[in-house]
């Protein structure tokens, strides 16, 4: 069975933030909540790289392990989703997640947390597929329409890939090989690649 994964190719990402914008627009995500973000390291220096980060849909998700009300579940496609009717907004998943994926809208005074929101791999939630209830709580359910996450679908450099982990692995491997091959054709070793 397919295991859905994201992969962001740091060699291709140009930090255009279109994935972030597309995600916010597609799911009507409220102000202050960002399911996806682009992080640039060594900004403006040699070796600058950008990565688009969202929920990584871990196989052994720390958020699911630590949740005091056990509101997470993994779909057959390996997508980690959560039930907002169960979530109590304690914030433990945010402390536990290595990638900073869980987000909390401000509910009341002192920024007390509302129910957690995170990337759903465009797969909605436990509600009926394509229902308005599901859309209000979790955003669009593209997976049920046979479509992949919008962030990856519209990535102009195809840096961000989403889909079956096996297929992504192949694409990634081919890219790496081609990069190595072109270096080989230049007749130089890796350290002397021009530019």
């Amino acid at each position, binding site marked *: 069975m397919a295991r859905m994964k994201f992969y962001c190719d740091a060699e291709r990402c140009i930090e255009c933030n279109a994935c972030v914008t597309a995600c916010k627009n597609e799911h009507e995500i409220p102000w202050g909540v960002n399911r996806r973000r682009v*992080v640039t390291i060594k900004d403006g220096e040699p070796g600058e790289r950008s990565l688009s980060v969202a929920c990584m849909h871990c196989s052994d998700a720390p958020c699911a392990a630590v949740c005091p009300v056990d509101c997470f579940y993994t779909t057959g496609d390996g997508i980690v989703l959560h039930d907002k009717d169960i979530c109590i907004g304690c914030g433990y998943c945010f402390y536990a997640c290595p*990638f900073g994926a869980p987000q909390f809208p401000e509910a009341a005074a002192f920024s007390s947390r509302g129910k957690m929101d995170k990337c759903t791999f465009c797969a909605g939630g436990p509600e009926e597929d394509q229902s308005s209830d599901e859309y209000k709580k979790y955003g669009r359910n593209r997976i049920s329409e046979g479509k992949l996450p919008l962030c990856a679908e519209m990535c102009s450099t195809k840096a961000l890939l989403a889909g079956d982990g096996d297929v992504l692995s192949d694409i990634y491997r081919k890219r790496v090989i081609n990069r190595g091959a072109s270096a080989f054709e230049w007749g130089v070793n890796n350290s002397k690649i021009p530019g």
Partner: protein
Amino acid sequence: MLVVLLVLPVANASTPQQHKDYPQGVSSISPGSDLWREVRQRDLPISGITQVQGVESGVLINADGDRWARFRIENPVRYAPIVLLVVVAILVLFYALRGKVGIEGGLSGRMVKRFTDYERVVHWTLALLFLFLALTGLILLLGRTLLIPLFGHQVFSLLASASKESHNLVGPIFLVSLIMMVVSFARRNIYEKGDLTWLLKGGGFIGKSHVSGGFFNMGEKSWYWMVILIGLAISISGLILVSPNFGQGRVIMAISHVVHVLGAVILIAVSLGHMYMGSIGTEGSIEAMKSGYVDINWVEAHHDRWAQQVKENDEVLTAEEFARLHGRIPESTDNATGQS
């Protein structure tokens, strides 16, 4: 390079079907894992800049998060119920072996004022807030393992949500109550000469004889300072956890949580002992916090140095005086000096 050479022919002939030729076992690893491993282990900075504004949104990997989650699952969630059950078992065993610690010569009926109304209000306010916070806190800590199997996710979510909201609301009031406790009780709880002897004699738990003590004995003082110090640690860490609007990072949150949960479990465990000794464990003790008055024989037994003081100051009330003070004349004044 050798590897590249070997796989080069395959790569050049790349077609969409080509991936079927690769061994299945290898391809199941997410291609992202290499990249993230590099981010974490190489010299690359694990945080950068981002257009998204939020707490630590520039941090790519927070490795401490998983460590904190594992700590919570493997320690407090697993051992807190065991610790509390062991304490209860010890108390039950102690009661079975020793029974209620009585007073030699029984109760005299002659009373001494121990606590003012204000002091008792301060005590019971703190006590009730503590019990409420302990209960709601334990629901949040242990509910997933103990209560979800009983009630199911939906019902437990309601209970946990109510617990979380009320815990957050009542928490700050606990701090206020704790400060009132410092103001009204701290002076009498300063350690003094004779406290060490009390400790060396095992506080009277070992053997039958009562141990010399002042207004508060060494055990009570230690419990008091435990409440104040651990209570403050719990309150401060709780305030850090309850107000994420100051932009504190996840590591500070995780440390606060560890302080909060460890302090709470220790305090709840010891409070069980305090509740036991204040009620069924020792004859006459509950009166101090019920009416504010204690029997002079109880004072002689447990707080002999204070007993000397009250006798010198002539503060002991006869049964008749005590009854009159509380607006009820005893049916038979002769009986009052006898056993009650």
